[in-house]
């Protein structure tokens, strides 16, 4: 299963386009579950109104660390596809900064893998936020 897992990572300054991402999804006949997460910049951080978040990445290391997480996921769950888009640079409030999609045979593993990936990302992937008033 591991070597066949489709991994697609995009770290980009461009807007995240969910419609395009959905249009390019492929799913084989044994797959029954797609879990997606969209993280959106909120207008309030720590009780204070903001206008945007500026995301900074140590990009080469971020890509490497994401790939290590993907490899670990392939060992833990029967995932057919993991796709992740992280926006960097200035992201205005109400705009998405993160999109994750997991395709698996059953829903339990898709939910588990999606949550694990986001939790681990926030632990090891070198991306930082700076709020803009």
């Amino acid at each position, binding site marked *: 299963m591991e070597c066949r897992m489709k991994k697609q990572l995009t770290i980009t300054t461009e807007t995240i386009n969910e419609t395009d991402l959905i249009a390019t999804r492929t799913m084989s006949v044994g797959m029954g579950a797609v879990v997606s997460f969209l*993280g959106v910049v909120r207008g309030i951080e720590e009780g204070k109104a903001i206008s945007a978040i500026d*995301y*900074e*990445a*140590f990009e*080469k*290391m*971020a*890509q*490497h*660390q994401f790939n290590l997480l993907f490899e670990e996921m392939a060992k833990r769950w029967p995932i057919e596809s993991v796709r992740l888009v*992280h926006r960097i640079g200035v992201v205005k409030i109400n705009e998405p*900064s*993160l999109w994750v999609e997991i395709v698996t045979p059953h829903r339990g593993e898709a939910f588990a893998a999606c949550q694990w990936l*986001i939790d681990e*990302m*926030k*632990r*090891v*992937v*070198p*991306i*930082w*936020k*700076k709020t803009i008033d």
Partner: protein
Amino acid sequence: MLVTVHFYSYFRELTGCGEINETLHSGDTLGVLHDQLMARFPRLVTMRKSTLLAVGVEYQTRDYVLRDGDEVSLFPPVQGG
């Protein structure tokens, strides 16, 4: 020997620079380098316990033995998403 040190995010603000070269003795560890950097940039001391250390694209601990030409990165806890 010479290593290159990169500071990211808040650490770039604390030190006022994104990249410096640092001279070390052969066999020096990442911990020795970190101490040397805190001596040069005292504002790093407050973040001592929350400092993440990487060589190249891998996390390393303070006992990691550096080699000439290593690319070291120091940064605060990550917060993507």
